[in-house]
C-alpha cells in the first residue's frame, strides 16, 4: 500500500466515521460543541496512532491466539496515559469530556485498525494509517460539532480556551443570538441528523465524481470512433 493510498482511505474513501460508521458512540455523544468534538478528536488521533505503532512494533512477537487480549491491553494502557495527560494539562476539557475519554478504549475503530492493518504492516505504514484514520474520524466529529453548535446556539468554537488557553477566547464566533438556536441540534437527534447529512453529502460528491469520469470516458470512446 502506498502512502497516498493510506491517506486517501483514512480521510475519504474508507473514512471510519462516514463510510465504515465505526465509533458512533463518541461521535454522537460528544459532538454537541465544536470544542468538545475537537478535544475528543485529538485524543482519538493520539491513541489510534500510538496503538497502531505499538501493535505493529510487536506484531512479530505476538502469538496469534492471544492477539486480541494484547491489543486491548495496549490500547487500554495508552488511553489511560492520554487520560492522565489530559487531566494534568487540559483539566477543563477533561471535565467537559468526562467519561468519553476512557470510552475511547471501546472505540471499535482502534481495534479494527489494529486487527486489519497494524498487525500486518510495517511500523511506518501503521503509524501513518493511525494518523489518517484518526484525522478522518476527527474531521467528521469536528464538522458535526460545528453544525450542531452553530444551529443549536448560534456560535462556533465557544469555550476554545479550554483547549488552547487564553489564545482561544477570541476564536469564538457568534453568528446569531443563542436564544434563537434550534434546540434539537444540541439534543441527541441533532447528532444523528447531522451525521446523516454528512454521509449523504459524501455520497453525493462521490457519485458526481464517478459520473464525471464515466462521461469523460464515453466522450473519449466516441471521439475515437
Amino acid at each position, binding site marked *: 500500500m502506498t502512502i497516498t493510498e493510506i491517506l486517501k482511505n483514512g480521510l475519504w474513501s474508507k473514512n471510519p466515521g462516514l463510510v465504515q460508521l465505526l465509533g458512533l458512540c463518541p461521535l454522537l455523544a460528544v459532538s454537541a460543541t465544536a470544542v468538545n468534538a475537537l478535544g475528543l478528536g485529538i485524543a482519538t488521533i493520539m491513541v489510534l496512532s500510538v496503538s497502531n505503532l505499538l501493535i505493529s512494533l*510487536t506484531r512479530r512477537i505476538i*502469538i496469534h491466539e492471544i492477539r486480541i487480549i*494484547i491489543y486491548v491491553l495496549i490500547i*487500554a494502557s495508552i488511553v489511560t496515559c492520554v487520560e*492522565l*495527560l489530559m487531566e494534568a494539562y487540559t*483539566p477543563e476539557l477533561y471535565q467537559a469530556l468526562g467519561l468519553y475519554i476512557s470510552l475511547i478504549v471501546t472505540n471499535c475503530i482502534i481495534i479494527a485498525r489494529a486487527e486489519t492493518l497494524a498487525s500486518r504492516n510495517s511500523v511506518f505504514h501503521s503509524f501513518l494509517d493511525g494518523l489518517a484514520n484518526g484525522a478522518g474520524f476527527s474531521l467528521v466529529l469536528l464538522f458535526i460539532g460545528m453544525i450542531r453548535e452553530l444551529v*443549536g446556539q448560534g456560535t462556533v468554537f465557544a469555550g476554545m480556551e479550554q483547549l488552547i488557553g487564553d489564545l482561544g477566547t477570541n476564536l469564538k464566533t457568534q453568528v446569531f443570538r443563542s436564544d434563537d438556536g434550534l*434546540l434539537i441540534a444540541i*439534543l441527541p437527534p441533532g447528532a444523528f441528523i447531522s451525521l446523516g447529512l454528512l454521509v449523504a453529502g459524501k455520497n453525493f460528491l462521490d457519485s458526481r465524481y464517478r459520473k464525471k469520469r464515466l462521461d469523460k470516458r464515453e466522450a473519449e470512446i466516441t471521439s475515437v470512433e
Partner: protein
Amino acid sequence: MTDTPENPKMKYLKAGLTLSGVTLVCLCLIFAVSGITGDVIARGKINARNARYARLFDPASFDNDPALDCHVLPGPGNTLMEVMTVRKGSEPIGYIVNYSVTGGYSSPFTMIAGVRTDGTVTYADIVQFNETPGLGDKVLRANGSFLDSFAGASLSTRNFNVKKDGGDFDYYTGATVTPRAVVRSTGSMLEKLKNADPGTFPSCGQ
C-alpha cells in the same frame, strides 16, 4: 505461525510469557506517566479549589483550609450537604456549602455557595449540571446573570421563591422549572444551615 510444529505445552508457556511481558511493559508505562502527571494533577485540583473558594470569600478574609473543617448536614429535600467552616483565626466568618438542587428536570445537580455567619449568601455557583441543554441551562453563569441574584440575599431580606410563586427572584420566561428548583433549594439550604451547628455533625468522608 510458519515454523515447525511446536509442543503445545511450549506454546501455552510462550503465550503466557508474552502476555505477562506485555502486561509488565504496559504497567511500567502507566506508572511512568502517572508519576510525571501526578503532581501536576494534584496542583491543578488545589488551584481550581482555591480559585473556587476565592470567588466565595475574599482570600484575605480567612486563613484556614475550609476543606479540613467539613461536616455533613441534612440538606434540601432528602439530600445531604457538605458544610465547610471558613475561619479567621478560630472565629468562624462563614460557611462554604456544597448542596444538591432537587426538583429540576434531571435533578439532583450540585451547587456551591458561600454563606456568611449572619446567613447572607456571598456567591452561588453550579458545580455539576445535567439539566436538559437549552431548557434549563440558562441558569448557568456562562449563559446569563441569574445566579448573581443570590449575592447578598438572606432569609430575612428575601423570599426564596421565583416571582411567579410570589417570591423575590427573577426567572426567565419559558422555563421556570430549573430556576424555581435552584431558588427553593438554596432557601432550604439556608434554613437548614441557620438551625444547625455544623461542628456537632459528622465530618466529611466518614
